[in-house]
């Protein structure tokens, strides 16, 4: 190969790396998918869903088959009697595995006044620096949009990053870009929790308004519950985020840095709920009894 051709070849290679570098710069700024990205994801998401379903099914059959063989060898004499019960049990367990997560969500939906929609997790991020999951929305295609909160019965999961068709990407709350306004009700203090990219756990920083007094009011302690504050409007108030795992008080006693252990096991998500709209605000006059005005007859002056 001549020097000129080699120069052209390497220049082209350099250019080919420069293009995705510019795309990366743009995607880090905007975070939105392009039309091409959406098209590829629309094709890939059902395939991922199918692979996930296939592997979960094969795994379930394998584990149940091995279990059945073991029990059979130990209970040879009672096989005939036990066979029917064992089959029923296996079927029930299979159904339970599939429906546990969804039943949990149904219960959550029943309890929650917010407008919500269920979704199944079909894939998870493969890069530790970016904690996202991909979900398949069961119904309501087109209703889910970026920014909507995602929860389970245990607590907050994250928010929708991007939605395409009946699939969406969710930024988990342990992603380094995730910021959640929270409050610790027992201490009466609030702040912003920032994901630290660790497998489990967030990093939080709470700035106190004044030095701590002798009564210890406003002190955050290990085990304190952390919930969303509702500030900023990104998440409705009162969703459980986790519990305080550790507290570091700075020497000048103006700042407490807290580590929060998540309420949700973010590594074992199977089904989630997307909040389409915040729950309606409580009626301020709910406590007061109101007398209906007479619909008929004469009204006294």
């Amino acid at each position, binding site marked *: *190969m001549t020097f000129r051709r080699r120069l052209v*070849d*390497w220049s*082209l*290679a350099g250019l*080919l*790396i420069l*293009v*995705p*570098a*510019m*795309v*990366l*710069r*743009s*995607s*880090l700024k905007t*975070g939105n*998918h*392009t039309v091409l*990205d959406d098209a*590829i*994801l629309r094709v*890939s998401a059902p*395939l*991922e*869903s199918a*692979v*996930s379903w296939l*592997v*979960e099914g094969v*795994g379930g059959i394998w584990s149940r088959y091995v279990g059945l063989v073991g029990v059979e060898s130990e209970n040879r004499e009672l096989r005939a009697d036990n066979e029917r019960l064992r089959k029923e049990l296996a079927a029930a367990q299979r159904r339970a595995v599939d429906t546990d997560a969804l039943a949990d969500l149904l219960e959550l939906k029943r309890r929650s006044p917010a407008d919500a929609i269920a979704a199944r*997790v*079909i*894939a*998870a*991020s*493969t*890069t*530790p*620096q*970016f*904690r*996202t*999951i*991909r979900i398949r929305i069961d119904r309501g295609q087109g209703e889910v949009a970026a920014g909507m909160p995602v929860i389970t019965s245990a607590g907050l999961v994250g928010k929708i990053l991007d939605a395409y068709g009946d699939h969406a*990407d969710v930024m988990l709350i342990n992603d*380094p*870009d995730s910021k959640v306004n929270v409050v610790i009700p027992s201490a009466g203090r609030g702040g912003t929790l*920032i994901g*630290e*990219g*660790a*497998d489990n756990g967030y*990093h939080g920083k709470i700035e106190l308004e004044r030095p701590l007094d002798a009564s210890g009011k406003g002190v955050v302690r290990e085990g304190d519950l952390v919930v969303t504050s509702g500030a900023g409007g990104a998440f409705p108030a009162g969703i459980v985020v986790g519990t305080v795992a550790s507290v570091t008080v700075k020497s000048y006693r103006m700042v407490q840095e807290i580590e929060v252990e998540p309420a949700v096991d973010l*590594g074992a998500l199977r089904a989630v709920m997307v909040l389409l709209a915040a729950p309606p605000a409580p009626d301020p006059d709910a406590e007061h009894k109101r007398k209906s005005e007479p619909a008929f007859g004469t009204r006294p002056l």
Partner: protein
Amino acid sequence: MRTSSHVLVAYLVLLVVASVWRLLPLVPHAAAPDVGGLVAAYLGLTARGRIAPAVAGAVMVGYLADLLGGAPTGLHAVVGGLVCILGHLVHRRILVRGLTMTLAFSAFVGAAAAVAVVIISELADRGLALGSTGRSVLQIALGTGAIGPTVFWLHRRVDAAFARTHRERDAALEGITS
């Protein structure tokens, strides 16, 4: 055509890894093997005269890895391009043959790609914990090393399918690069 086939095979492997890795027991779910980096290194190692088509393939695989892996678009594409060039630069100095060498080379590629991702993430001001990052790099290296022989075997089969002579076919299956 050859590069497109490699990209297609890599896409299918990426699909499987993205869907299945989270379901596997006893593996760190947050640190999956870097399939994009492996394929990029393979394309670099086997790039015959010109490097540009191999880099194009590596960038394409990286782009797909970004989409399927939930990373910002372009991150693994850049890393893939760089790993491909690294593979091409070392292809005359090392011979990736045999299980042990493939395992070791794959683990090295996984670690190199993970470090590159960390550096780019730091440049993007992701603010990651250093201890957590070090552990992730190690886990990715081990995971990539574990699946490296399978991925290389698959891509050698692709190269063998495109061989023009029996000699080329045997060389491709053996992992001998010229």
